[in-house]
C-alpha cells in the first residue's frame, strides 16, 4: 500500500539539482511531486515520479547518490481539516511522521509521508479504510 519515492543526496553546490533534473528529462520521466530538505552542507531531494525504478537506474548509473524507498500516499478530500484528521490517527497510536509533503491531483489532496513504524502505520491505514494510492494508481492518474 505504498508508492516508490526517490531520495537524492545533493551536494550543496550550484548545478547539483539541475543535473539530476536533466537526467530525468532525458529519459522522459515525469515529476509528480518533489520536495527538498536543505541543510548548510547538503540537501535531500525527494521525488515521486513516473517510472521510479527506471529513474533510479538512470541516476545510479550517472553516479548520483540515490536511494529508492517506499512511502505512504493517501488521498483526501480537498477540504479543511482532512490532513489533521488523518495524522491524528497515527499520533493517537504514538507513531511519528518523519517527513510529509502534499500535492493536489484531479481535485483531491494527496499526502505523502514516512513514519517511524511502517508496519503499524499500515495497520492503521487498513483498519480506518483510508484511501491509499498505490504505485499502479499513480501511473494511471498521469
Amino acid at each position, binding site marked *: 500500500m505504498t508508492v516508490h*519515492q526517490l*531520495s*537524492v*543526496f*545533493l*551536494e550543496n553546490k550550484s548545478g547539483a539539482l539541475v543535473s539530476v533534473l536533466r537526467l530525468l528529462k532525458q529519459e522522459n520521466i515525469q515529476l509528480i511531486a518533489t520536495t527538498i*530538505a536543505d*541543510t548548510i*552542507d*547538503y540537501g*535531500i531531494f*525527494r521525488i515521486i515520479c513516473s517510472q521510479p525504478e527506471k529513474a533510479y537506474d538512470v541516476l545510479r548509473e550517472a*553516479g*548520483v*547518490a*540515490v*536511494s529508492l*524507498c517506499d512511502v505512504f500516499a493517501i488521498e483526501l478530500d480537498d477540504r479543511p481539516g482532512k490532513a489533521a484528521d488523518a495524522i491524528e490517527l497515527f499520533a493517537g497510536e504514538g507513531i511519528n511522521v*518523519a*517527513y510529509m509533503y502534499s500535492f493536489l491531483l484531479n481535485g483531491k489532496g494527496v499526502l505523502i509521508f*514516512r513514519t517511524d513504524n511502517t508496519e503499524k502505520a499500515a495497520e492503521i491505514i487498513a483498519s480506518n479504510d483510508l484511501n491509499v494510492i498505490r504505485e499502479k494508481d499513480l501511473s494511471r492518474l498521469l
Partner: protein
Amino acid sequence: MSYQKFFNPEESYSRSELEALQLERLQATVKHCMNSPFYKERFRKAGLTPSDIRTLDDLKKIPFTTKQDLRDTYPFGIASVPLSQCARLHSSSGTTGNPTVILHTKKDLEEWANAVARCLWMVGCRPEDIFQNASGYGMFTGGLGFQYGAEKLGMLTVPAGAGNTLRQIKFFTDFGTTVVHAIPSYASRLYEVMCEKGIDPRRDTKLRTLVIGAEPHSEDTRKRIEEMLGVKAYNSFGMSEMCGPGVAFECPEQNGMHIWEDYYIVEIVDPDTLEPVPDGEVGELVLTTLKREAMPLLRYRTRDLTRILPGECPCGRHHIRLDRMKGRSDDMIILKGVNIFPIQIETILMQFQELASDYLITLETLEDNDAMTVDVEMKDQYIDDYGKLQSLTREITRQLRDEILITPRVRLVPKNSLPKSEGKAVRVVDTRKKY
C-alpha cells in the same frame, strides 16, 4: 605439491649470521660509494674513509642522506656506476622541486625481483597461483616491481594495471586470479563494483590473497577489506628510493612487516634530534642499502614514521619487524599546535558502517584561524533518513574531537564525489596561509 618454507636461505639467518653479513656488505657498499661523486665529497668533508667503518656501530659516523640530496644531485649525481652499466631508471613526480631519480643495474633489478618474490612466497604464493597486478605501471614502482617479483616466483602474472574496474573483475572471474596487488582504497572500489554487478567475491572468484601497500591504512581498514573480499590481506612496504616494493612485508602472522636485513640496515631516529630512539619507540625510519650497485644510499631518511616491534616472530624469521607506518614525518598535520596524523582520522571514520571508504581532510585559514574540514563519503542506503544523517554527523564530530582534540567540521558527501588522482585517494589538502 610440497615446497620449501623459505625462498632464500638468508631468510632464516640468526641474528648473529645476519649481523655478520650486514657488516661485510656495509663495508663493501661504503667502498663502492667512493665511485659516487656525491659520497666521495661527503666522506671527504666528514673526514671519513671507508676503512673507518669497522663495526656496524660505525655506521653512525656517516652523515644522513636526504630526499633533498637526491634533488640537488638530479639526475645522476649520486650514481656509483657509469650510466652505461645502468639498465633502468625510475623517477618520482616532482611536485615540490626537482623529481628524484633512482637508477638500477641489471643485477639491482634481479635482486629487487628476488626480494619481491621472497615476500610473496612468504605469504603463501606459489607457481600455481595467478597474480593480477592492479597497480599503476610506468614510473610507479608498484607496477614493474611486483611484475618481475611475481614472474621470478613463477606465477602466471597479469599486468592489469590501475583502473578499468570492470575489466579487472572480468579477469578475476575469467582467469581465476588468486592473488591481487592493489592499493587499499582500490580494493574497496573493486568490491563495490562487484556488488553492483551481482558478483560475490567468495562464490564467483578464487581470490585468496591481497597485497596492499602504498597508502597508509588502519588495521580496521585491512579487516574490512578482508571481510569484503574473503581474502587475507598483507601489508607491503617499499619506496622508490629503496627500489620499490619488497623492502618489508608481513608474514602470515600479520603482525608487523619483516624488513629484509640482508638488504638493508635499519635505524629508527628522532626526526628532530636525529638520535636513535629507545627500542620499540616510534621514530623516523632510516635505511642503508646493502646490495645496491647503481645507487647505494647510506643512512637515507625515509620520512616514514614507525617503530620496531619487540620480540621474536613465531614465523621463524629473525629479520626485525616494522610496525604499520604511523604516517610520515612530513605529512604530520600541525593544527592549532596539535600534531595529527591522517591515519588517526581514518581509524575513527572506518568504524562507522554508514560510511564508504573515501574521505578528504581540508585544512584552511578561516578568519586567521586554522580550521579542519573532514568530508566523508557515505553509503547510499542512508540517504532518506535526515535524522540519521544529522546524528551521524554529530557522532563523527564528537569521536574525532576526542581523538585529535580539535573539533573539525564534518560534512557527509555522496559516494565517489571526492577527488582521486591515478586511483590513489587524495587524503589531505592544505590551503592554509603559510607564514
